[in-house]
């Protein structure tokens, strides 16, 4: 990764957002959207711009499940593990996903639990990026990862 380019794009995100009330979350969202994660070495930069301590910024990043400080895998599959999906076999789906992806290259695909995608009447559900999938059977899951080009 090109550190100088990071610093530059982070600076432009900060300067476009910093005057909004409660700017920290919008800034973190924009950085993660642009880079895929929030580089730990950007914390000082964000803190200075918002007149916060590094601890405060770190505290916010680590409080919210959505934010991450390491680069994501090439693909992230978020499987809903809340009650409605559990009642339709979400646990079996997670097991199946882990088994299927066990052989994939490191950093190729990450499976993350998520608590509710609001697709509770068409469960089990999952999300890839912003793309939603409902009534996911193991067979449907296999077709999906094949379409995504994930080698297992």
């Amino acid at each position, binding site marked *: 990764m090109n550190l100088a380019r990071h610093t530059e794009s982070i600076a432009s995100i900060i300067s476009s957002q910093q005057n909004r009330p*409660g*700017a920290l979350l919008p800034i973190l969202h924009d950085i993660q959207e642009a880079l895929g994660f929030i580089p730990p070495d950007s914390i000082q930069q964000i803190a200075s711009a918002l007149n916060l301590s590094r601890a405060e910024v770190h505290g*916010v990043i680590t409080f919210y499940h959505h934010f991450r400080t390491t680069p994501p895998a090439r693909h992230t599959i978020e499987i809903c593990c809340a*009650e409605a999906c559990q009642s339709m076999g979400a646990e079996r789906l997670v097991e199946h996903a882990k088994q299927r992806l066990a052989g994939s290259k490191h950093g190729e695909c990450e499976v993350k639990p998520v*608590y509710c995608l609001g697709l509770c009447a068409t469960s089990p559900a999952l999300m890839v990026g912003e793309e939603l999938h*409902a009534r996911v059977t193991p067979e449907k899951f296999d077709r999906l990862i094949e379409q995504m080009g994930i080698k297992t």
Partner: protein
Amino acid sequence: MSIKIFVPGDSAALALGADALAKNILAEAARRNMAVELVRNGSRGMLWLEPLVEVQTARGRVAFGPVSAEDVGALFDANFQNGGKHALNLGLTEELAYLKKQERLTFARVGITDPLSLEDYLAHDGFQGLRKALTMQPAAIVQQVTDSGLRGRGGAAFPTGIKWKTVLNTAAAQKYIVCNADEGDSGTFADRMLMEGDPFVLIEGMTIAALAVGATQGYIYVRSEYPHSITILNEAIAAARKAGYLGPNILNSGNSFELEVRKGAGAYVCGEETSLLESLEGKRGIVRAKPPLPAIAGLFGKPTVINNVISLASVPIILDRGAAFYKDYGMGRSHGTLPFQLAGNIKQGGLIEKAFGVTLRELMYDFGGGSASGRPIKAVQVGGPLGAYLPESQWDTPLDYEAYTALWAVLGHGGIVVHDDSADLAKLARYAMKFCAIESCGKCTPCRIGATRGVEVMDKIIAGQDTEAQVELLRDLCDTMLNGSMCAMGGMTPYPVLSALNHFPRDFVKKIPV
């Protein structure tokens, strides 16, 4: 004349392939030289039929579902665009029993209109409530909302009018309207369906709230798991602003109201109002001590109306049709309607807006058609992850705030999650503790430590270690969480745990392997 076809753009329909379906319909129509007007409507809420395609005919809209992208050719062959015969033809949408038996007030337009067409919104009574509000004194608007009996639909059921009155009577240079769209409860999707299916009604409701209390800035805090809702809301806000329904001079009245969408970041506890306000301020979502109430010192320390999506979206019809019209629905002190969300292991899951007083059995069998698996239904969790599990003996109690309190249960946001007889309630009780441990904000000890200890105790119970003593410990721990937590996160986690234990004690005794 072109043919009008509706393919929902709601997240649930998208998750079942509605985009590919819409593309195929357009391609097939082009191939046959047919002029088609395709509308991406909201969902009608009959989610087992999604994607549900509708066609406009002289008799009314005819429904087809569930339609997959591969069905398109055969549908055109069957002359579906004129309501032709086909195995997926369900008849006139409005005549479908699931819809016909509902009382749709808040969801009156959802699934019918094009969510982003202002023209469509206006043609279906849109902005009538706002127009009335603009002719009224702030106190009179608050009085209408109070008289309607509307109570907070997020779950706490606090009278909306009283909240507004406090904000109106608190003098300040700046006041805020905040919409809580952090719909994190499993089994709930009413907020999402409304934001995606009729965003203007939420904008109208928030604008009326602003006029009522003298606020000039509003925020809609939407969870990050709802990317489509965020996109649609942003487009709707831009359209409303352009047409003068938002902005510095609303409909030339001299009143100003600006609205902005803010995105959450995956913290369940931010659905708690004070935690949400902290998050909006750019901080960790740590729960605040009350008092002061948000109505007196809320966002950035200013008086703030903070209401759930459905509460705010119910306001326009109250102003338009009058408090008495709305109050007439329901029973006891539960006035109006609640959009129930039937989910989990259910054959016909979806959104059912009914007046308070309907029973679980009616919803699960008359509407839902029983379990999806075909096995007997064992337990039903009402009101999200912090709601109680109800056994069959309680399924005939009317869904009413006070009747549920008497059962030691809650209606919450109206989510109903059905489990069949393969469910293990001890495992679900453990999950409730685990969820609390993951999502606790960490401010108060009963929740932060209690949930972790709760998981450990449940592990021992599930393993059959010293069950009797562990169950006693679990009850003791739940007592501490119930009475000692700062907010509903720790304070209500005992609801699913103890209701599971009390109603399904056999699941808490280790099964002896044969």
